[in-house]
């Protein structure tokens, strides 16, 4: 039940965001978040945006994976 999917915010009106998930569009509530902007990725769960994805933190995690691959390639 706790699954939530990252979806791109493409439009905003009041407490509702239209999100795009691989081409599927859906309106979700943004009542649980203070700031949402078009272009953000949000975690969508039962019709609500639970949290914004922190792009900088995601990049840091991916960078660690990239370093592991680079290390393997150099061996």
């Amino acid at each position, binding site marked *: 039940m*706790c699954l939530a999917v990252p979806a791109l915010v493409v439009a905003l009106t009041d407490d509702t965001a239209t999100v795009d998930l691989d081409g599927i569009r859906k309106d979700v509530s943004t009542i*649980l978040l203070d700031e949402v902007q078009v272009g953000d990725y949000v975690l969508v*769960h*039962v019709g609500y945006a*639970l949290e914004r994805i922190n792009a900088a933190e*995601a990049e840091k995690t991916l960078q*660690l*994976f990239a370093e592991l691959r680079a290390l*393997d390639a150099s061996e």
Partner: protein
Amino acid sequence: MKYVDEFRDGLTARLIAEQIRQEASGQREYRLMEFCGGHTHAIFRFGIHDLMPENLKFIHGPGCPVCVLPAGRIESMIRLVEQENLILCTYADLMRVPAGRSTHKGDSLQKARARGADIRMIYSATDALNIAQANPERQVIFFAIGFETTTPPTAAILKIAKAMELKNFSVYCNHVKTPPAMAHILASGEARIDGILGPSHVSTIIGSEAYAECCHTYHTPLVIAGFEPLDVLASTLMLVRQINEGRAEVENQYTRAVSKHGNEKACALITETLEQRALFEWRGLGELPDSAMQIRPEYAGFDAEKRFSIDHITADDIKGCICPAVLRGVSKPDACKLFGTACTPEDPKGACMVSSEGACAAYYSFGRFR
């Protein structure tokens, strides 16, 4: 899909797994509990299980809300909806869960619907509000279940329903809390857990700090892990390192969605509408203090337990079903006599076989030929 595909790369997965095999060497066992059913499914679906060394075992936890809901609470709702001719709304996960059997053998919400009860599957809590508005002459109950992830939407609709002064809407609140269940499992010690893969989206709401006391009290490390396979692998490696170094800290691998204090706006909304319930029964774990939420007195008009006379039914699980032991991390699903024979996802006898997050369903879907 962005933020999904990058976290499923096969080469990276093999490299992290190799690192785990190197660092988890030696004589000791590493017994890691993934609390969430979402992690159990990622472990089986992506074959993570097969990449691990022999001495590292994943123990499946109780983090599946429909699995831990006592069957009696479902039967109570079936009785109410059939007696009062009201509309019952619930998330799809709950529809096929076996209810208590004192009225109808092998009953479920789905079977009650087939008999004519007006039970509706909804995607979002907001749908329940819309149904109440569209049917002003009938009472509508939202059968709310879920851990902290699913609690804020329920809190949100309670607040909206009060603002709208809806007279025909109420919530049957079954929301439960993660840290008390975790503490209970660690305190009992029967699953012999060395480390915990912490919840992804529960933590998005409650924050990483919420587990600090539990980790400290039971000297057990916890790493909050995302639900994608690379998240699970990286978190497993972090746990192995903590265990090797004798540390018992809360670490956060899922930094792209989880902060130290969580979603404070969502938590404030929960506090405004819900309060701690003194005692709540969990299937498998028994009655746990301060482990669930109930509706605040200010919102009593929207509390189905206050508005209706609800029978409190204590229902036994079906004979032979070992769901309770599976939920405590003491038994594996394939140790059950009913597994794959009398109990399958098509005809489930126990809750853990129904839910897409249940451990039995994961074994059946991805591991039954092992």
